[in-house]
């Protein structure tokens, strides 16, 4: 049995705003019988104030699916459409005092239904339909765009987390390689943006630069050299010239020029784009 919070249980056993809304002017529908959960969200939006004056739901699904739907309707009532769209799936989970991690996809379903309903109100296609992309998980019909979006928003890093939030990969498991590739791409993006942020203060003093270069060498470069029996030492920094000396097996290794290019690229990426590496004999 799952460990559900008291609020989840309360919203499951006493769901708020159940049913359909006769005069709804926005309806969002996500999920299916085959997937094991589905949510139909009805909103009544005042066209003058853009306020959500009433919200109802019908849900087929587990305890946390019902609770997430119930919580969502409570959270959006009285909000303007713009305010409501700021709600994230994490907000829904937080409102409920947390959800078991395997059930986070229920909160994502809530957010998706809300976006679909508002798109319906605005006469736009549902955002999920726009997320056409490439089908990654055939069992649950999840596309790469959808995985990317949820993974970025919730900072997901493992296949298991992606499954918990989107269900993708939770069926036959054949798409795990594809999900891993998407995660790799997201990680690479993240590294680049971090590197940019790190490289941003271009006016570093020489001492700061040396310290940063030393850090990158120690953390990113030496461990892999040492694995092959080599090593590297930072000798000096002269303007943009990083003077290094190879030690151990690297000093006689013909690929050291290759290694040098790799080190240069790393330092340019992580410290300063103008750095060049120069091998010296010590």
């Amino acid at each position, binding site marked *: 049995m799952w460990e559900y919070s008291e609020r989840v249980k309360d919203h499951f*056993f006493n769901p708020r705003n159940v049913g359909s809304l006769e005069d709804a002017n926005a309806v969002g529908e996500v999920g299916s019988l085959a997937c094991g*959960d589905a949510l139909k969200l009805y909103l009544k939006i005042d066209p003058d104030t853009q306020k959500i004056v009433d919200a109802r739901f*019908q849900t087929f699904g*587990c305890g946390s*699916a019902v609770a997430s739907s119930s919580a969502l309707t409570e959270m959006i009532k009285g909000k303007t459409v713009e305010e409501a769209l700021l709600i994230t799936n994490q907000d829904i989970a937080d409102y409920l005092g947390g959800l078991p991690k395997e059930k986070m996809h229920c909160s994502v379903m809530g957010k998706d239904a809300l976006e679909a309903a508002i798109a319906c109100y605005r006469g736009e296609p549902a955002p999920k339909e726009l997320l056409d992309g490439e089908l990654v998980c055939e*069992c649950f019909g999840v596309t790469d765009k959808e995985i990317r979006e949820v993974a970025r928003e919730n900072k997901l890093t493992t296949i298991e987390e992606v499954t918990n939030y989107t269900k993708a990969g*939770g069926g036959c498991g054949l798409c795990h390689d594809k999900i891993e590739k998407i995660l790799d791409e997201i990680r690479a993006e993240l590294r680049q943006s971090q590197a940019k942020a790190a490289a941003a203060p271009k006016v570093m003093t020489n001492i700061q630069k040396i310290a940063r270069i030393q850090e990158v060498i120690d953390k990113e470069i030496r461990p892999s050299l040492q694995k092959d029996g080599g090593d590297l030492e930072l000798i000096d920094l002269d303007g943009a010239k990083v003077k290094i000396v190879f030690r151990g097996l690297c000093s006689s290794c013909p690929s050291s020029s290759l290694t040098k290019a790799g080190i240069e690229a790393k330092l340019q990426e992580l410290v300063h784009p103008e750095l060049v590496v120069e091998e010296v004999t010590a």
Partner: protein
Amino acid sequence: MRVIYLDNNATTAVAPEVFEAIKPFLQERYGNPSSMHFFGGSVSREVTKARENLADLLGVTPGEIIFTSGGTESDSTAILSALSTLPDRKEIVTTRVEHPAVLNLCKHLARFKGYTVKWLSVDKEGMLDLDEVRNAISDRTAIVSIMWANNETGVIFPVEQIAEMAAEHGALMHTDGVQAVGKIPINLKNTAINFLALSGHKLHAAKGIGALYLRKGTRFQPFIIGGHQEHDRRAGTENVPGIVGLGKAAELAKQNLEEESSRVRSLRDRLQEGIMSQVQFARINGSLNDRLPNTLNIGFEFVEGESILLKLDELGICASSGSACTSGSLEPSHVLRAMGVPFTCVHGSIRFSLSRYNTQEEIDFVISQMSVIIGSLRAMSPFGQDKISSACIVQ
């Protein structure tokens, strides 16, 4: 709150008689059965008695019983032993509806050890096609591993007949009897079955004790290697309290099997009829004829199993579901899927499994609650509203 326990295929209550029998072995009678002194020797005699009782329940001789840590260990022991004693045969025949103890082991053997697994399918009722079974077994088959009764649906397979087919090809026959032992009469003496796995906690003994029946004359390779216990067939100091308890449970099962199973069957049938007559859009999963007397698996359309379980739980009623949401994985029951149960019904499937300790009053209470629970969840569901409401008008 009172508990109405209808999840006996998951685990059972330890019988009070079993508890009494175990107690001294957790207290003053702590000797090691392998010891030379009287203190240990007297314990050894109790282990012997337990072995005799269990052998009696299965219609076999005590020398054919090996105590293990449970159903899973017994399954692994049997299958791996067969593969190593028949090294030239690289095929395994099993079904798509086995318990993970067999299913995942076979997947592992196929994926990492180079064995070919012939997966037998089942029909809508959960039954095997015996022609398909016959065709799958060949001189390349090392072991045929087919469960006696299914834990989710209670469907019973004709394993005695299949054992004959295996024997014709010199293949070994293993059956996972975890759900069958203690629930239906079993007599292995005149069968061609080589191995049978059973588990204590499914028949009112403790958890962590089980046994493997190993037919006399079957070549054997132990799974756990070490000391000389169990005649060199399963090393490790005996789980004496577990064994004594299992012996007692076997004795009780043997004594009361006939009378109890007919009483349990009539309660199960009462539950079945009660629910089916009051709840629309429900279907029974699994053959009505070849089924354990204690098991009832029902699929409720337009509702999801975990929601049903939560509502039952609030009333103190314990059952289980083949719904994806109740397991760690997102895949609904592989058993119901293999039977081709429509998705609309798999997610809303509930298994009730009874025991000798259930009463008619309990069953009647559950019947009275089921239609309320299903009704309230359907009222919340976006599906089938038109169907459900029109059905109500017809009624």
